[in-house]
């Protein structure tokens, strides 16, 4: 089991783990909140469309909003109660802008919708598994929130040699995957087997970093006798990134601009496997997730199972509030998570952590000039030259930055983390990617406008031409008629 040869991760950093803050706190359920705020978009793709009305009573697990289009995921009621609003609520996003949200006032009954479930899930057909995963609204719980069923279908069509379950959890502070593997390993292993069946995988690997010995032991015990192999990986950031975990476990690289399916690999998070098992065995859609509440400013760090839509303030209260002044609130991990300012934001499917960090933990300082020390070059897991890319972006030379590999950047933050000059390198790159996307949209729009204008000119020319031709025909006809009349008159005259 441990004999699998690991491949080397390039670059990478060793941020201080700080996982001990929450690691030994078992998963506890949060008290039922009075109101839940369920955004219609908690996934990559098109937002879901509401299928309920204000005032309607819903049961726990009932469909609230249906998937819309090819890339989308439905949203279900996290508890039983009444729909009290279909409106806007502050988004779990740094902007804090309002987004379309369903407000559900709970009745405290926690009454489940009758669910079918399946006692023998491992006998289901692959298509059926994917269909049920889609209906349960399951998205990637590692943070990317890509609709899981879509990945299953794409991979089944292209063939999967290796299925990788990501239990890396390389982000500091976060222990939600660690805890779910320790406490719910048998369910996760069943979920893994369901995914493997859905894509007909030849080989199944669970990659776990060596800083989680208890999770490794639990998963190994649960995987005993199955085709699921638990692989211990060295602790290093960003080991849990999709490209990097594939590289370490298989030695393969995803071609630039491609997908794991291009090299016959599928990666899912361990928590996603648990959600798949719950959906298929018990017919329970994805309505809750494990969230780590931690950070130096939090009084009692913990891991909670929170319903989707629970305001973050409820989680902070559950952790006994703040012990120290909070310099920054973060959703997700400190390396790639997003700052938020309003504690009324809801927990969504992709919320892995709620962190309240102190100023010393953030270690923020004013940026100073780049001394080209190339610490960022050595830290980059992709092999980029962050210092050169930033220099090009600062000079508004996006083309130059793209030539250096801007589009290959995975925004892991390793370069910013190690930069002695405290230059916000990833910020530069994300800004440039945004600018690039805007430019490409503008270009498409321009091309569309140009095409419309050209079509119009062509249309006008055609109409004019047709009109001229018609006029010419009419003139010819009239003249012919006149000639005929004249000839007739002449012949009459002659007669």
């Amino acid at each position, binding site marked *: 089991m441990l004999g699998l040869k690991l491949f080397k991760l390039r670059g990478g950093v060793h941020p201080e783990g700080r996982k001990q803050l929450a690691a030994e706190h078992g998963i506890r359920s949060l008290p039922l909140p009075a109101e839940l705020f369920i955004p219609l978009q908690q996934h990559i793709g098109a937002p879901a469309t509401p299928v309920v009305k204000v005032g309607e009573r819903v049961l726990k697990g009932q469909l609230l909003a249906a998937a819309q289009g090819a890339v989308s995921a439905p949203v279900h009621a996290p508890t039983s109660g009444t729909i009290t609003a279909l409106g806007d609520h502050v988004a779990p996003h740094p902007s804090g802008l309002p987004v379309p949200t369903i407000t559900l006032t709970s009745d405290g009954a926690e009454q489940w919708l009758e669910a079918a479930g399946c006692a023998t899930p491992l006998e289901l057909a692959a298509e059926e598994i994917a269909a049920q995963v889609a209906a349960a609204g399951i998205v990637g719980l590692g943070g990317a929130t890509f609709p899981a069923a879509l990945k299953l279908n794409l991979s089944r069509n292209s063939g999967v040699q290796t299925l990788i379950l990501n239990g890396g959890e390389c982000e500091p502070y976060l222990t939600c995957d660690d805890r779910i593997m320790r406490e719910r390993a048998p369910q996760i292993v069943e979920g893994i087997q369901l995914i493997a069946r859905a894509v007909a995988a030849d080989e199944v690997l669970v990659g776990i970093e060596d800083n989680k010995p208890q999770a490794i032991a639990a998963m190994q015990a649960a995987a005993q006798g199955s085709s699921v192999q638990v692989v211990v990986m060295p602790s290093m950031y960003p080991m849990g990134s999709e490209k990097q975990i594939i590289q370490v476990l298989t030695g393969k690289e995803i071609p630039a601009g491609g997908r794991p399916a291009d090299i016959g690999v599928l990666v899912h998070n361990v928590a996603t496997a648990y959600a798949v098992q719950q959906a298929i065995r018990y017919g329970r859609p994805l309505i809750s997730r494990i969230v780590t509440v931690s950070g130096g400013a939090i009084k009692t760090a913990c891991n909670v199972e929170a319903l989707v839509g629970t305001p973050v303030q409820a989680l902070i209260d559950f952790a006994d509030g703040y012990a120290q002044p909070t310099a920054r609130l973060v959703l997700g991990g400190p390396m790639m998570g997003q700052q938020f300012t309003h504690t009324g934001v809801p927990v969504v499917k992709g919320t892995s952590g709620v*962190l309240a960090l102190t100023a010393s933990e953030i270690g923020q300082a004013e940026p*100073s000039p780049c001394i080209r020390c190339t610490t960022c*070059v050595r830290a980059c897991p992709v092999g980029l030259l962050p210092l050169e890319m930033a220099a090009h972006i600062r000079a508004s030379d996006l083309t130059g930055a793209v030539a250096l590999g801007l589009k290959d950047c995975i925004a892991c933050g390793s370069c910013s*983390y*190690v930069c002695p000059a*405290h230059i916000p390198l990833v910020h530069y790159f994300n800004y440039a990617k945004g600018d690039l996307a805007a430019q490409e949209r503008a270009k498409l729009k321009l091309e569309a406008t140009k095409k419309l204008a050209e079509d119009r000119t062509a249309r006008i020319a055609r109409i004019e031409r047709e009109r001229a031709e018609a006029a010419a025909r009419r003139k010819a006809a009239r003249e012919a008629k006149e000639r005929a009349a004249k000839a007739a008159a002449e012949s009459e005259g002659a007669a």
Partner: protein
Amino acid sequence: MTPIAHSPHAHAPISISKVMTTVMLALTPATLLGFWLYGWPAINLWVICILAAILGEAFVLRLQQRAIKPALMDGSGILTAWLLALSLPPFSPWWIAVLGSLFAVIIGKQVFGGLGQNVFNPAMAARVMLLISFPLEMTTWVAPALHPGFVESLHLTFGSQSLDGMASASLLGHAKTEFTRGIGLDQSLTGYYAPLDMLWGSRAGSAGETAALLLLAGGVFLIWRRIITWHIPVAMLLGVALPALLFSLIDPNHYAGPLVHLLSGGVILGAFFIATDPVTSPNTALGQFIFGLGCGLLTWIIRTWGGYPEGVAFAVLLMNTATPLIDQYIKPRIYGRDRRGAALPAKKGV
């Protein structure tokens, strides 16, 4: 309310001033040995170099209407002056130190746009300027352990007391002079060359060339603290040692061996503290190796066939000009792409 910050929301405990301070820490033992060997004049020189750099940098920052404190506090100007002080003859007059320091921080660094923007290593640019402009003062070396008193040292540094009677040539200068007189290395080095003395620094030279062993220790310390990597120092030492070995095997009476070259002049200081200046060296490991090799090779070529007995400063400056070229051609391979930058082919199975 503070503005919204971008991830990451954590940072390694490192800063520019910490980097500079660590380098200074690595230089301290060798510097103290220099002070002990050469006494007060060396201390005067070091203090004047650093003061001139601070004042000069503050003055030009003010001219540019830029914040003075953050630029001075990063410690880069002090480090430049420190390195310059270590490369000067210890009994140099005050104005050599002032001119050199001002040239280093103003012409060498600030006119290019300040920290991180300069093309040439500022300390070496200043040293070469001094060497070309004031060849007499820059080649007047004294044997260590003369120990002039403090008052006498002030006369030496600020007055016009002649160094006649104290002066002696550095090893490389001596060998070169003797060689032009037709005296081979077998004779000229006798009594002049004792490797152990060179390791401990008891011979004529600048503070930065006498204490080879302590400088080596400082360099290893920097590698251990991950301030520098091994690529440039190792490549530079190889670049000097390999041709020296080859040619001394061919004609030992004409060409000095690798040990003489490695332990004399500024090779150790250059390899670990000068060529490793991040601003003016390439940004990939392979590029740094090539850069170091070039520095070493050019040093050996200049020493062997050039007009000057020492070549580290020239070699580093010449390789500085090659840095953008090296960076243009040597880039790391990007994940999912081949060396040329094309996407890897999609392949299943295998």
